[in-house]
């Protein structure tokens, strides 16, 4: 005869919402978001190359966009997303190889990623200005 039991109280996996948000979680999301933003960046590269191939007028239109203030803001954001995603990718390659997974190393890598991407972006634009960006 089947006996009726009270449901067994098994441990439940904690809901995602109760985890303390860590910087590496935010950076994981940011890696995805910058990756998706780079799709728009690739569209800009396509426009740039097609304009260069099409001729002077088409290139002028692209240059008009690239040198406008909104174009500059978009290109600055694109360059930061690119460098951030590139450095983040190196971080994931290091982790894929099994290195840098200790707590202190993780934190260090994540911080190096943020600081490195900002410094590299500023450095890139300083170089662009130095080389006579119009």
């Amino acid at each position, binding site marked *: 005869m089947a006996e009726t039991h009270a449901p067994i109280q098994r441990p439940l996996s904690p809901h995602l919402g109760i985890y303390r948000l860590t910087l590496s979680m935010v950076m994981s999301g940011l890696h*995805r978001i910058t*990756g*998706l933003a*780079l*799709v728009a960046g*690739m*569209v800009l*590269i*396509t426009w740039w*190359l*097609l304009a*260069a*191939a099409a001729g*002077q007028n088409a*290139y*002028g239109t692209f240059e008009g966009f690239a040198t406008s203030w909104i174009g500059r803001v978009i290109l600055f954001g694109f*360059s930061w997303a*690119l460098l951030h995603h*590139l450095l983040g*990718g*190196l971080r*994931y*390659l290091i982790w*894929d190889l099994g290195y840098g997974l200790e707590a202190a190393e993780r934190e260090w890598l994540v911080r190096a990623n943020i600081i490195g991407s900002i410094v590299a972006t500023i450095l*890139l634009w300083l*170089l*662009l200005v130095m*080389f*006579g*960006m*119009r």
Partner: protein
Amino acid sequence: MSMRTPLGRVLGLGSAKSGTEDFWVQRVTAIANVPLTLAGLFLVISLTGHSYPGIKQILGSPLVAVLMILFIIANVWHMKIGVQVVIEDYVHDHLQKLTLVILNNFFAWAVGLACMFAILKISFGV
């Protein structure tokens, strides 16, 4: 006629029937993208200040053109896999997922081919 057993043929291929190929290619293209992107940034810096004819001449030189084609292949491939992973993670309806993955493929091919065509056209100067 394959000598492999039916079990051997499917082991390790998973439900997508392509195994870990995308996972691996995503990492290989990531590695390739590091030097290629740095070269691309170096190119953009060296193009600043040039007018259209100068830019066209630099873009059309063989070394730059070959590096740019490699940049486009590695980056577009990486982009295609990356976007597909995002679609597969967040879109759960099968038909919607299939539609978006196919559109993503079309997009990647169109962008990749357009860029390569443009580079070759500039190089050959026609």
